[in-house]
């Protein structure tokens, strides 16, 4: 649908249309990424909208989102490509009599027999896509090293086949929860974006965007409470998605104010650990009473 964006403001508007309110330098970095064809490394605590940014960007650019969810033990066969050995076998059997050996040999290592996994899919797609490599910090360093070729040159080397260069330039986003330090080599190839919990005003705007029917006073109070909860030393501080969920929950319940009772009833939407609940109930409940 869209060609490359024209300006930073255009990106910000486009993301807003896709339901993502870009704060700080987010729009700028997204703009640079599309312009410079550089991957973006997005870091920040869980639940600040890193993955959401990729989705919104895909919607805005009118591109398909190819997502690679990382986990410990992820390997090339699941991320890059795999040979479709069943098909290769069939091919051999089908041609067992007629064809010469060398023909079959050449044949079965063609692109036809490749199973494209997300990364190969992303670069070999005819139309440019948005590639999201989610939670890169969950993988081991070996996998990171494997990504380097893809990220800097947008190509993949398959031993039997040679180099597969990108037919289109994907926009690449890598997200990380900062649970381990990524290698310098990876960082050097990326633009860097640090997303943190939004300021109260920004979060208020986000909540309004997603739950426009919520009364203004309630929304304001909600954001204040969430900020208060994040201040506490919790196992899992509430994410932006959870404040939106909470806003929707309050809307459903028809609450007109957040008082101690409403809070205790609906707290489980934003706090999800038993010990956290106790702590929050004690501190915030007191503040609201």
């Amino acid at each position, binding site marked *: 649908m869209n060609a490359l964006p024209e300006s930073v403001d255009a990106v910000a508007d486009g993301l807003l249309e896709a339901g993502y309110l870009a704060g700080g330098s987010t729009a700028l970095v997204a703009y640079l990424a599309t312009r410079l064809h550089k991957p973006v490394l997005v870091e920040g605590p869980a639940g600040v909208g890193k993955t959401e940014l990729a989705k919104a960007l895909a919607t805005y650019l009118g591109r398909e989102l190819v997502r690679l969810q990382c986990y410990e033990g992820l390997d090339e066969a699941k991320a890059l490509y795999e040979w479709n050995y069943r098909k290769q*076998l069939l091919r051999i059997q089908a041609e067992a009599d007629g064809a010469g050996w060398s023909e079959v040999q050449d044949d079965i290592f063609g692109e036809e027999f490749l199973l494209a996994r997300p990364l190969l899919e992303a670069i070999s797609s005819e139309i440019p896509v948005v590639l999201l490599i989610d939670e890169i910090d969950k993988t081991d360093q070996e996998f990171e090293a494997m990504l380097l070729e893809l990220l800097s040159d947008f190509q993949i080397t398959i031993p039997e086949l040679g180099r597969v260069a990108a037919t289109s330039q994907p926009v690449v986003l890598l997200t990380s929860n900062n649970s381990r330090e990524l290698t310098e080599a990876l960082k*050097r190839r990326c*633009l*860097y974006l*640090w997303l943190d919990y939004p300021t109260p005003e920004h979060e208020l705007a986000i909540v309004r965007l997603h739950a426009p029917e919520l009364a203004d006073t309630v929304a304001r109070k909600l954001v204040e409470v969430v900020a208060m909860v994040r201040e506490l030393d919790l196992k899992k501080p509430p994410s932006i998605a959870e404040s939106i969920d909470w806003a929707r929950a309050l809307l459903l319940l028809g609450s007109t104010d957040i008082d101690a009772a409403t809070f205790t009833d609906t707290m489980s939407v934003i706090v999800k650990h038993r010990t956290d609940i106790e702590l929050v109930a004690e501190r915030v409940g007191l503040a609201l009473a």
Partner: protein
Amino acid sequence: VIDRQLLLFGDELRAEGVAIGTSELLDAFAALGEVGWDERATFQQALAATLAKSPEDRRVFDLVFERFFFRAAEAAAIEAGVLEAGQGSGGGEGPAGQIDLEELRAQIAQALVDGDEALLRDLARLALAAVGRANDGSGVIGIDVQRIRRMLNLRSDPQPDLPPEDPRHAGLPPEAMRRFEAMLRRELERAQIERTQSLPPSRPLGELDRALPSGPTADLAAVHRVVAQLRRRLATQGVERRGSNRRDHVDIRRTMRASLQTGGVPVVVKYRPRRPRRPEIYVLCDVSTSVTSASVFFLSVLHALHDSFRRMRSFVFIERISEVTDIFARERSFKAVSEAIASDAGVADVSGYTDYGRVWSEFRALVEDDLQPRATVIVLGDARTNGRDPRADIFATIAARAGRTFWLNPEPRLYWNYGDSVIDAYTPYCTAFECWTTRQLEDFVKALTAPVAR
């Protein structure tokens, strides 16, 4: 001109310890080619996205950016013979150079209502020149900010005695005021940097070099990182031994796949990869007074280990030993754990001095049946027996039953075997490490996860 400036800027960042490669500088140039330079914030963010690649780096980047480009701008201004409006008025000569304080107040108020960032920044600088430099600041930035705010008569509550068209009549928007205060603060900081010719204390030394037992929560993150590394190494342990021992299972799928190379005849037999062994860990942690400072560290290590390993049993000991595996499983926060252990672990008897002999025999009684060659025993303690019998013989039987035994001593090696420390009695049976920084903990992790020679 900007090329040179940017390279110099890169040099300054490097001097502050931010690792910047040539490729990053090239990226920065490319990025600047795409955005306008007139917006200061855009300019800064574009540079930050290409040059500063971690939150710490970003902090340093912002400081250096302020310092560098502020100086550059001022130098350029002097060169061109232009003086900042505020600078002439600081001396207060003549009505032309004098800033009308009332006028300034009104301007700031208007800008606050309009929310014009760039104008506000200029005004903040002006205000500083008019108010701040007149009488030298207190030196404490927070106090100075408030002083200036009062002198500018900025209040969020309505001031009905002013004419209604004045924005201050209805009171100023509090968020805007906060922003303005932040700007004032930044300007003051910058003035301070200028005066002292140095950055505010740059980021602390590499956290791995810090000695450990200082602040438990601050160090907890570092310890967790090291332990996460330990877990990863342990999880993949044993892989390198694959193939050396041919008691493996044939992997049909991969064998078929390999047979394609030979036209469907399985010439090369592929084996199923060895599943790495599951580590089984016993950790004994001394919590007596002689290791008070270190035991906080040890407990945090224990805590981190517990987050990472399923099959792990932990014990704390002073005179007696007590299993605390359940406490770690139940309590998620480190604080709760240390409190629970302090209050009801029941490890102290009468004297409160460590009795290693008794601890060993109790430990042996507790786990004798479970100990097996695949188990790893880790002792965290200073081996100070307070003159009691070390009973190295019992320790030897434990070490013999377990696959590997490690000792982490929180004291520098210099103090080992000094006074009542008897670590030498145990070293024949275990590998001992000094461990009082996270770096040493990492060394230990390396040793722990090194391939086992058999």
